[in-house]
């Protein structure tokens, strides 16, 4: 079984950076009207990703979202409280479940394959990619549509600001989807060589050790990495922060992975390490190389 995972296509919506499509060109206006922000971002990014891959139907759909469908949840909660639990409409409740976006994509594509949604804070997207890798290695799927997405609402901004989340980072949101495959194809963006996640390291040295061990397990010389996207971790290797662009949210690594995939596809870089931590608790790294 081939151990390599190929990124056949990648698509991203990052409202902070104005990377946002004309949704009306991508989605049926009737359907669009009923979609909350996270659903339209997710469905549009997924669709662009598949169009670019030239693939009408993936074998599996896996999504990750830390916060889930905040807008619909907030509307239903507000109505429930202000109307004292009487005369409530189900529309926002139906769309409040965390698997809504993955389900909507399956519904639009008529995709009856494997479908899963991970909601584990700063590991939501990482868990989704991990599940995709397992599916590809099992041969359960030859292609997996995997995405990370979160939305920002007035209420979430107010509450998370009170928690201090935006003290050192700007608030963010976005959706990025990837078509992952177990075989190389023409026009692949990049090869996903490996990934690692680790939880709540006690001292900074532990972080460096984890990353060095990861590269060693991969038999990769750190000097062969020509760019780190995210936080500084490898001395002497140029580092490009990305949250100044997309802002802070639990699945922001999906944005970073999209950025890295593009830089490799266009030949600007050959090997990129994406490294991020969410609140110092959830640490994640992805290693990307050239597709062929």
């Amino acid at each position: 079984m081939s151990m390599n995972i190929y990124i056949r296509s990648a698509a991203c919506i990052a409202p902070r950076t104005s990377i946002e499509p004309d949704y009306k060109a991508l989605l049926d206006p009737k359907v669009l009207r009923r979609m909350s922000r996270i659903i339209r971002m997710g469905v549009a990014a997924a669709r662009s990703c598949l169009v670019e891959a030239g693939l009408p139907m993936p074998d599996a759909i896996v999504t990750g979202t830390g916060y889930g469908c905040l807008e619909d949840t907030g509307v239903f909660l507000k109505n429930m409280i202000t109307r004292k639990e009487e005369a409530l409409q189900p529309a926002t409740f139906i769309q409040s479940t965390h698997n809504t976006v993955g389900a909507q994509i399956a519904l639009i594509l008529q995709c009856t394959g494997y479908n899963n949604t991970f909601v584990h804070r700063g590991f939501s997207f990482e868990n989704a990619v991990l599940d995709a890798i397992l599916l590809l290695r099992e041969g359960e799927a030859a292609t997996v549509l995997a995405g990370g997405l979160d939305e920002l609402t007035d209420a979430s901004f107010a509450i998370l600001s009170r928690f201090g989340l935006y003290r050192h980072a700007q608030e963010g949101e976005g959706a990025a989807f990837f078509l992952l495959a177990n075989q190389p194809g023409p026009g692949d963006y990049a090869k996903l060589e490996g990934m690692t996640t680790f939880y709540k390291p006690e001292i900074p040295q532990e972080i460096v050790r984890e990353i060095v061990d990861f590269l060693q397990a991969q038999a990769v010389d750190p000097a062969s990495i020509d760019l780190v996207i995210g936080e500084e971790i490898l001395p002497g290797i140029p580092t490009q922060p990305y949250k100044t662009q997309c802002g802070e949210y639990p699945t922001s690594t999906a944005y970073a992975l999209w950025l890295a995939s593009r830089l490799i596809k266009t030949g600007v870089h050959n090997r990129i390490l994406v490294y991020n931590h969410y609140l110092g608790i959830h640490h994640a790294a992805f290693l990307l190389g050239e597709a062929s």
Partner: protein
Amino acid sequence: MRITSATTFESRAANAPVAIAGMGVISAIGRNVAECLASFEKGEAGMGAITYLDTVHRGQLPVAEVKADNETLARWAGVQKPVSRTALLSLIAAREALECAAIPDRARWRTGFISANTVGGMDRTENFYASFLDDPRHGGLRDVVLHECGSVTEWVANRLGITHFHSTISTACSSSANAIGFGARMIRHGLLDIVVAGGTDALTRFTLNGFNSLMILDSHFCKPFDNDRMGLNLGEGAGYVVLVSDAVAATLSRSAGCALSGFANANDAYHQTASSPDGRGSWLAMKGALQRAGLEPADIGYINLHGTGTQNNDLAEGTAIRRLFDPVYPAMSSTKSFTGHTLGASGGIEAVFSVLSVLNGLVYPNIRFHTPMTELPFTPNVEFRKGQPLRHVLSNSFGFGGNCSSLIFSRK
């Protein structure tokens, strides 16, 4: 959790059975495995008038509550102060599962906690939100600290001393079946040695009102697979199994008598909340699980049905079962007739019941069943039966968003 191009995976391991070393459960019919089993045997369901949930629907809609307030649950969980009920239920059941597994020297193994839920700490958020709506500076932050689904899992994992791998899955009512399937796959890939997998959900006003607005709640006790069924009763609880690798299984003093032998996940791709009339997703999930377990429909001795009691689910699930099993049907029942529909916890709770079924040859009753459905040629089992010669048990979990998953538990 590290996965690299050097990580090996043998494809013949893809469908190997994964041993189950322990289990834990809390639901409306008991605070542990022994109490739940006793309730089944006595035929005592957990539904009743709303007692603990603070809602205007008290006295109108029956629910299946865990019979304890949050202070009591905190005491059972061994924590100082109550936090979200979702987290308390989870800790109680997950701890029972680990104690039941009694794995010698657990610290030497790579352990994961994969837990599912649908609304996280919503039981506290909905209290916070009233003050917050008045003024965004108001409302105590301690009420929303476990709002996110993942924070509930993390809070519990920290108390269980599990750090190697955490994950939370949320696919509506199939959530914890997917957590168990994912856990087994992590072991098969050699990425973890032990996984505590399942799910938790507490009753909240949010879900009660959501389901009420969909008009699928029965104002009486639910009647799954009955022709006169009127909807579901919501329940709450948590259920976990402890999945272990062969290497860990070899160290157990009492050998694991049951294994997860099949798992499949499919999507109905029909409607955001309704199942397709022919139960396309349910059929694919059951068929896939059988295929991966290397079994034929006739090998299944008992089906723990999803069986919510709604018009739509029971017809779709029943139609898919007919298509797959006709003309010979195994014993079947919906234990939701005892526990209510525990949403994100149901796959975990029913996995525990299915494991007990395999270990002790149990078939649970589908209580309050009276009139066969006109569309189906079979009826659910209505008596508590012991000592049945069961080798394989199928457990179904189907949810909103078309997410359908089936698990098969087999005697080892």
